[in-house]
């Protein structure tokens, strides 16, 4: 059977502030699920919960039937659940190639297999010329793509991308659509956080909208685009 990533009843509080309030989410293989919402809605925090960087007050995370709520982040990666960071966070003193190699090694890949995978991903994400550049010297847009490549090195079953297209211009963003398709074609489920609505509406199978930690709406891109509350609270001119 195909495994599904499920989160149920997730609540996160910081002191008196409830940042995520009883949110459920389901992500299937080969599916692109958009997670959108105003700034500070709790999207990144939710990804932190899924990836194990944030312990929720309540809630369970499952892959298939296995409860992974108690596992550490690196363990979840080895179970096929990877993420990128909103602030990218490459290993600054390592070259792009070494960044990717490290991710491959962490999954126990052989040097040979890792190198082959690096070549594939570099071509996919337009990183070829940058492989021998130290990560700290990368321009912002390239840094983001390298971050995605590093996450993909793990050969994940589910990938959570936190604003992957930030810092890309319109043309690049369109090229990026094909990258997403390629990833999806590998059978990988994608959780996509993005403020670029062009991308979200073109790419996603489903969209879930968070506001103030609660699910405001969920449905197909078209339903969301026309959802009155979403238009007002979030989309503004992008709704056009």
């Amino acid at each position, binding site marked *: 059977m195909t495994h599904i990533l499920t989160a149920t009843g997730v609540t996160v509080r910081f002191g008196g502030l409830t940042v995520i309030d009883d949110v459920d989410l389901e992500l299937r293989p080969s599916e692109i699920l958009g997670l959108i919402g105003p700034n500070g809605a709790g999207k990144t925090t939710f990804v932190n919960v899924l990836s194990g960087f944030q312990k929720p007050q309540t809630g369970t995370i499952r892959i298939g039937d296995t409860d992974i709520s108690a596992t550490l982040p690196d363990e979840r990666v080895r179970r096929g659940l990877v993420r990128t960071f909103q602030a990218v966070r490459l290993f600054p003193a390592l070259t792009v190639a070494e960044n990717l190699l490290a991710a491959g090694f962490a999954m126990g890949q052989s040097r040979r297999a890792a190198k082959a995978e690096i070549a594939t991903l570099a071509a996919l994400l337009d990183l070829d010329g940058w492989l021998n550049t130290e990560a700290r010297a990368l321009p912002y847009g390239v840094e983001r793509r390298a971050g995605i490549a590093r996450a993909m090195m793990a050969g994940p079953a589910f990938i959570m991308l936190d604003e992957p297209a930030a*810092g890309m211009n319109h*043309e690049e963003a369109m090229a990026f659509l094909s990258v997403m398709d390629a990833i999806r074609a590998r059978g990988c489920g994608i959780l996509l956080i993005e403020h670029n609505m062009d991308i979200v509406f073109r790419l996603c199978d489903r969209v879930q909208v968070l506001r103030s930690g609660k699910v405001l709406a969920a449905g197909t891109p078209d339903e969301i685009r026309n959802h009155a509350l979403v238009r007002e609270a*979030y989309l503004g001119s992008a709704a056009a």
Partner: protein
Amino acid sequence: MTPHLQIEDVSVTYGAVRALNRLSIHAAKGETVALIGPNGAGKSSLLLAIAGVVPLRSGAVRLEGRDLAGQEPEQRVGLGISLVPETRDVFKKLSTHENLLIGASRRRLTRAQMQADADRIYALFPRLAERHNHMAGFLSGGEQQMLAIGRALMAEPGLLMLDEPSLGLAPVVTDAVYAAIATLRDQGTTILLVEQNAARAFSVCDRAYLMQAGQVIEEGSAETLSARGSVESVLFGRSAPAKELRP
């Protein structure tokens, strides 16, 4: 008439990498100038060079005709130059409010004046008001971006440099930011705007430069540039690292 900002023949290198190559641009007082170019074109490097945190290898940065060589970054802030860096760099261990206050470091303000200025920022970004006592490091990505912009505005700069201000912002907030940029422009602030979303930038700018590989390749008003279609061709090219000085 001397332009407000004049960049003459500026080169910037990082070790063996040349990020800017004898580049010249200018901006008149009150003008809004956009810088457009693919990843690695050197846009951020240019803003950092103007702010004084990366050294020039050659050329000069002039503000109202005066060469800024030897002026420390903090002194340039005193001259009215303010930067919103693309890495945001909010002070994580300071509260939101303190981050705003520190933006006004170079202005001799009373507490009341400072509070009034901060309130204007809160009006622009209501989200920050809700989080004014939060440690900035705990803010969400977009909230940090708002804070970085707000902090720069607190300096009441004569020359505002924005490096991808819409990065990570929700569409409604991006609208608000661009509305604010338009207001500042109308008030006479000179603005240097780096933006990936060319159409968005063109909606507010008077003039734009197209940059590639550390050089200006085209210059003109928004209309002429988009009419010529050169924007697409530049932006769609594959990005590659800047040329090394040595083989």
